[in-house]
């Protein structure tokens, strides 16, 4: 196979299959994401967003298919410096200050000792945590903590950022500020894959991936999704797509009520 590392898309997923605990979470998914875009991965909780993101970062065991990032196998050593990942729950050290956390993560991605201070200051300013730089993380609010977690992914300027529900629980002003940051990063050529279960975040994304029960229902721009479904808002468009998808299934394979039920079971399971 020819490798086009220089021009390869940011993310290329082919026939991805993931099985977790004996249950097929993603039955076979294809998606390609070009560089320099803000791509929203939207869908209800439990639909496989996190699993797909983990596969792209290379921390998910997969049952089949290929996942390539910048033309290289996901999770490979050369990519670990180029991909930033923010998990849904803030994954930083509660018993360290913001600065101590960021200094450590910056040195892990290879920022040189003499550049550490400047790099930490840069990302702290980016997530607007300047006033809290010397505060221990366990004394911060939930929203502040998730911004520390985001800052920890920004150190070393990765080329692909995979952000799992980064705006949950943030106040609207902060949410707007974060989306401004995301677009500024995209203008600099960074690719961002941002998940959310809040459909109204769709308007902030260059492109939307609508996901349900491990399947992509749509891969389009917001106007495109609205036009193809004849709806006025994403929520209604999503419902239209769900209805269409279940009608397209062979008779008796799976009716919409089954799918809904399994969604609720998954919710209860989480």
């Amino acid at each position: 196979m020819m490798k086009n590392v220089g021009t390869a898309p940011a993310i290329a997923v082919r026939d991805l299959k993931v099985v977790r605990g004996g249950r097929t979470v993603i039955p076979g998914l294809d998606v390609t994401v070009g560089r320099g875009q803000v791509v929203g991965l939207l869908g209800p909780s439990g639909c496989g967003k996190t699993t797909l993101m983990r596969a792209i970062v290379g921390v998910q065991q997969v049952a089949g298919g290929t996942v390539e990032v910048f033309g290289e196998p996901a999770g490979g050593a050369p990519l670990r410096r180029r991909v930033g990942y923010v998990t849904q729950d803030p994954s930083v050290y509660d018993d360290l200050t913001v600065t101590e956390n960021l200094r450590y993560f910056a040195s892990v991605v290879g920022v040189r000792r003499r550049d550490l201070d400047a790099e930490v200051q840069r990302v702290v300013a980016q997530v607007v945590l300047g006033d809290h730089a010397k505060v221990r993380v366990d004394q911060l609010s939930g929203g502040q903590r998730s911004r520390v977690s985001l800052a920890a992914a920004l150190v070393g300027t990765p080329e692909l950022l995979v952000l799992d529900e980064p705006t949950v629980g943030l106040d609207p002003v902060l949410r707007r500020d974060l989306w401004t940051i995301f677009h500024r990063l995209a203008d600099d050529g960074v690719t961002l894959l941002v998940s959310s279960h809040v459909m109204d975040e769709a308007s902030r994304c260059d492109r939307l991936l609508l996901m349900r029960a491990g399947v992509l229902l749509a891969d389009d721009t917001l106007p495109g999704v609205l036009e193809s479904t004849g709806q006025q808002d994403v929520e209604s468009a999503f419902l239209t797509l769900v209805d269409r998808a279940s009608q397209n299934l062979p008779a008796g394979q799976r009716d919409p009520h089954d799918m809904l039920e399994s969604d609720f079971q998954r919710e209860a399971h989480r």
Partner: protein
Amino acid sequence: MSARLTVATAGRVLRQVRHDPRTIALLVVVPCVLLGLLAWIYDNTPVFDQLGAPLLGIFPFIVMFLVTSVATLRERQSGTLERLLAMPLGKGDLIAGYALAFGVLAAVQALVAAGFAVYVLGLDVAGSAWLLVLVAVVDAVLGTALGLFVSAFARSEFQAVQFLPAFILPQFLLCGLLTPRENLPDVLNAASDVLPLSYAVDAMRSVTVDADATGEVSRDLLVVLCFVVAALALGAGTLRRRTP
């Protein structure tokens, strides 16, 4: 593996401990209190001189085992382990960083406890007191290495704490402290031959009874260090970048 990443990781772990002064106090004070209690119980008998040195090795071993297994379990559960393994950090860097950080803590603990035992409690040491400290540090590092390894098999703090009676107490019973190892039934004697704590205690005992035991001590220490390296390698092997 990279020395820079190992040192950065060790520095981060020590910084975490520094924010927790009570843990530092417990690490340093508890072994001294226990040794003091022992000396008091066996006041005016030769028993403290027999038991003091082996226990000087065993207390740091147990404490470091517990502290390390809980610390690494927290790293797994907080999601920071997953983040680190998605970053350019080698598994060996992480494990060696932890071993280095807790090794430093163990050294502080062993220095204080050995100093207290020798100068305050009057523990008789035939050999060099520095050798006593060295053996105590290596014993503590052994506890750290085993703690790193077994924490991989703990899914919760409850389980991690249960590993102490499961992994450590059998070694404690068989290490020769309760009855000399050569007096054990054959099967148990053979079992004690393959348990690391036996060599740790042998080394401690040799330092105290024999002024000229450097050869024996270094052989035992070498065995303990082999166990340390094996446990660290196994511990690194249990880290998985990809999880289900």
